[in-house]
């Protein structure tokens, strides 16, 4: 059971491409735009353009395709199952019935809904993975902090919230290694995690979770001491050693993103009547 192998979230692949050199703010805004567009896209043509666009970014950023997609592997069975669910159970009053069997009725509306939602999931996954693969944690923090700074004015502790998110992202990998050790230790003692009924399997997880949570809380206490010893105080009066600068690359990327967004909005609006 190699747990850390399929984790691509929060992993950074260092590189020298233009995508890597982009200002983190440009990348975060672009990713947010892409995610927002995904929520509205309902036609296959739009997904076609989206596929070309994301594939272009992946190639341009020099990310090995197998690596970008390996995080998807554990999700596939669930995705397939949910697609079948949508196919058979979702329907609208005016949908054409493709075939029916026992209590299940497959309609073209269900097929469309299943396809669209599954595609949306796949692309959401790809967009966030590309963002974290090409942006180091430090850059991601700086970018988010600078983008969310205006929210401080309405009383939201934006810097602290960004810090929380970064701690979460950073600790996923640390805790994954720890979880790996705990599971191996239990297996060495003869626990077979993949055997037994549902109740037996669940019971076997309890001696894994307890050490995981206790270790996590011990690490949390250490981190609290470390941060307090360095007088961490969130956003108040903090300055940066390295400030962010937008350059010519960002202008280019911004223009490409703008064109793509306009194209997408055009497709979404022109396809609006048929849902």
């Amino acid at each position: 059971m190699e747990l850390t192998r399929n984790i691509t979230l929060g992993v950074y692949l260092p590189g020298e491409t233009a995508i890597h050199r982009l200002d983190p703010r440009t990348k975060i805004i672009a990713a947010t735009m892409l995610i927002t567009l995904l929520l509205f896209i309902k036609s296959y043509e739009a997904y076609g353009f989206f596929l070309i666009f994301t594939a272009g970014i992946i190639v341009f950023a020099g990310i090995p395709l197998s690596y970008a997609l390996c995080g998807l592997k554990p999700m596939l069975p669930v995705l397939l199952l949910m697609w079948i669910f949508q196919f058979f159970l979702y329907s609208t009053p005016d949908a054409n019935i493709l075939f029916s069997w026992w209590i299940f009725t497959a309609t073209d509306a269900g097929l469309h809904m299943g396809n669209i939602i599954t595609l949306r999931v796949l692309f959401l996954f790809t967009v966030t993975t590309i963002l974290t693969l090409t942006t180091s944690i430090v850059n991601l923090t700086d970018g988010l902090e600078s983008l969310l700074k205006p929210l401080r004015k309405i009383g939201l502790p934006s810097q602290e919230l960004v810090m929380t998110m970064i701690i979460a992202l950073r600790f996923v990998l640390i805790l994954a290694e720890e979880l790996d050790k705990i599971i191996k230790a239990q297996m060495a003692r003869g626990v077979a995690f993949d055997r037994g009924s549902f109740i037996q399997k669940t019971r076997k997880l309890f001696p894994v979770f307890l050490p995981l949570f206790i270790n996590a809380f011990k690490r949390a206490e250490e981190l609290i001491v470390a941060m307090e010893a360095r007088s961490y105080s969130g956003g108040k009066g903090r300055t940066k050693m390295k400030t962010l600068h937008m350059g010519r690359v960002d202008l280019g990327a911004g223009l490409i993103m703008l064109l793509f967004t306009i194209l997408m909005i055009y497709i979404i609006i022109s396809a609006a009547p048929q849902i």
Partner: protein
Amino acid sequence: MSLSVRKIVISGILGAISILLGVTRLGFIPVPTPAGHATIMHIPVILGGVLEGPVVGLITGAIFGLFSFLQPGAPFFADPLVSVLPRLFIGIVAYLIYVSTKNINNILALVLAGAFGSATNTALVLGMVTLRGYLPFEVSLSIGILHGVPELIVAAILTVILVKGIQRIRTSEDRPPVS
């Protein structure tokens, strides 16, 4: 509003555990139903609410929700109204239940906090799924019963075990080294 270092760190680490349970699929307990898995990814959120209060519960819930939106395990989670919004309430409900029943019996309060926290997740997520029209009401209801009940039982047991374990190391650390 300002956040103490303690709240920042604990919400972050509990959020990390929630994400970890998701990416390793360890947070999905195989239940013999058509929809596949019951989740225990919301347990860190319940713990956050019980151990550190509503703010940590809220932030951990937000991280859990954001993660299940960005790396969805099921298609309908690719909608922030389904994945993020309902999760904000898990920690708050767990906290309120724990605080209001703590004086009767600590263990009972933990069981109830775990159970109600889990029920909040099931009810609100499936409610949103139905409202947004991803699944018809009958299907949501049957998933709610088939998944919600095992999730609720596992959550109640795990909350007691984990909170007791964590409270024990905390009290032993507070004690002076020579006693």
